[in-house]
């Protein structure tokens, strides 16, 4: 195809642009120089050791994991309801209600964070990781629904009807037939919500009170040049973790598609 070569080189260059920061990350994480600049000095794993020994960081990690696990489970549970409602039933006002639930996907996060903060302060609720979980669940829900809707919409309705005909109740049919079929979608929704929550900064920054989360801790440390190499090491671990989680999510999504006999197409969004 004429012009394909030019387009191809552009696309490869663009990928390079997308990956440039991520490629640099491990270079600086294993570099023994204390300044983040070229030329690189030598190889070291000190920064990883320093990261491991940092108590505040461990606390931030624990907080972030607690938040991410809770928010992803809550968002996925709520998402299952919405995905099932939108793919299986027709009712007046469905579009508007679904649109409203999906709104956080496009709303600037600062607006969500600041309006939630005003309400929480007004109601006299103490800021803690609980309040962050509430905010993150809201932010993760649209992504969970997007993933789950794909899983639910490729579900064959006649399988459930067959179960009813064979005497299963609504709940047992859901548990025995529907749930196993959409399970890959659920796993991939959990993973995606987990990744989003683990990385979310603004809402945690506004709603966590004095509790550090990983992103707010990283943000507070970026001001101190001495801490940067350790943050690079932390970043390397986080990037590796996200890639593993995403590859797993993608694997489950494809397996789900294969199980329902449709072809694997489309991305994670």
């Amino acid at each position: 195809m004429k012009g394909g070569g030019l387009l191809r080189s552009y696309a490869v260059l663009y990928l390079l642009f997308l990956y440039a920061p991520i490629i640099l990350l491990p270079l600086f994480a294993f570099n023994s120089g204390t300044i983040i600049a070229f030329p690189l000095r030598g190889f070291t794993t000190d920064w990883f050791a320093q990261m491991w020994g940092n108590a505040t960081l461990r606390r931030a990690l624990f907080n972030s994991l607690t938040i991410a696990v809770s928010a992803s489970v809550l968002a996925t549970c709520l998402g299952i309801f919405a995905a099932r409602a939108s793919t299986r039933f027709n009712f007046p006002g469905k579009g508007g209600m679904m649109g409203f639930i999906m709104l956080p996907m496009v709303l600037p996060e600062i607006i969500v964070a600041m309006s939630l903060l005003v309400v929480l302060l007004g109601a006299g609720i103490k800021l803690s990781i609980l309040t962050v979980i509430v905010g993150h669940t809201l932010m993760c829900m649209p992504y969970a629904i997007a993933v789950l809707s794909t899983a639910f919409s490729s579900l064959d309705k006649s399988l459930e009807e067959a179960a009813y005909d064979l005497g299963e109740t609504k709940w047992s049919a859901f548990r025995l037939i529907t749930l196993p079929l959409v399970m890959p979608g659920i796993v991939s929704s959990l993973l995606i919500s987990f990744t989003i929550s683990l990385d979310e900064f603004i809402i945690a920054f506004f709603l966590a009170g004095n509790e550090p989360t990983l992103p707010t801790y990283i943000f507070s440390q970026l001001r101190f040049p001495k801490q940067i190499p350790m943050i690079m090491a932390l970043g390397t671990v986080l990037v590796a973790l996200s890639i593993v989680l995403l590859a797993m999510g993608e694997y489950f999504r494809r397996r789900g598609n294969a199980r329902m006999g449709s072809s694997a197409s489309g991305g994670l969004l």
Partner: protein
Amino acid sequence: MAFLKIDREARQGYSLIAPPFLYSVLVLAAPLITILIYSFFFYKTGYSSLEPGFTLQNYQELWADPIFRAIMQRSLWVSGLVTVVTVALAFPVAYYVSFVVAPERKALWLFLITIPFWTSYLIRVFLWKVIMEQNGVINSVLVGTGIVENPVTMLRSVGAIVMTLAHAYAPFAILPIFVALEKIDRSLLEAGRDLGESRLMTFWRVTLPLAMPGVIAAVLIVFIPTVGDYVTPELIGGGRIPMVANFIQTQMLGLDNRPLGSAMSVSAMLAVAVVSAIFLILNRKFLKVRQ
């Protein structure tokens, strides 16, 4: 009987959608209504005293403030620029993946494009700072190879912010355009060329108009969140080029002026909504003319 059946289906639908919808009402709608009320019914008079009663003072004060006007204008301008750059850079990639890449490899390409998006946003932004610093990656290459003598200053500029955000929002632009391109019936393009159009004219008269819904989605999905971006102006702009989110943060966490902070958020949302609406209207006109 049919009526009853529809009714039953609707009831089931409502009871299913109720938990997530109520959650959104509680955690999203209620707070948004609250800041609306705060901005219109309270005015901060002293250190910790709020005066209740309907007032437009917050908005008057805000829009009379040249600093706020400048920041709002800059936020919209920077986001507009980011949107144009991001969509323009992304379109050829989406086109390539949709039209040139073999069908069985499309999923892999999309996966490769989305991976960077899922890695820590903060660290990605910070690494752009490392790349563009005085002794950063670009400068060490430029100085090292003797292309320039003295390091080039790149940070603390609108260009640097645009570059970083164009990177951060890349998948948001590529995916909707890709989806729109995928939907185009390939036989239309063949028809265009059979009727004697050149490749370029076919693209201009057939592909581009059909891809427009994807482009519009990409524009909105990039423009709206970037107006409220906090991290990039802070890290890349070095606090010297604040955008509206940085201003809101200072009012809320720094000065604890909730009514004014609320008025700012409402104004920002309104400004974004107006710009988006103008864009949609212009676009509809443009498409009509083309038809």
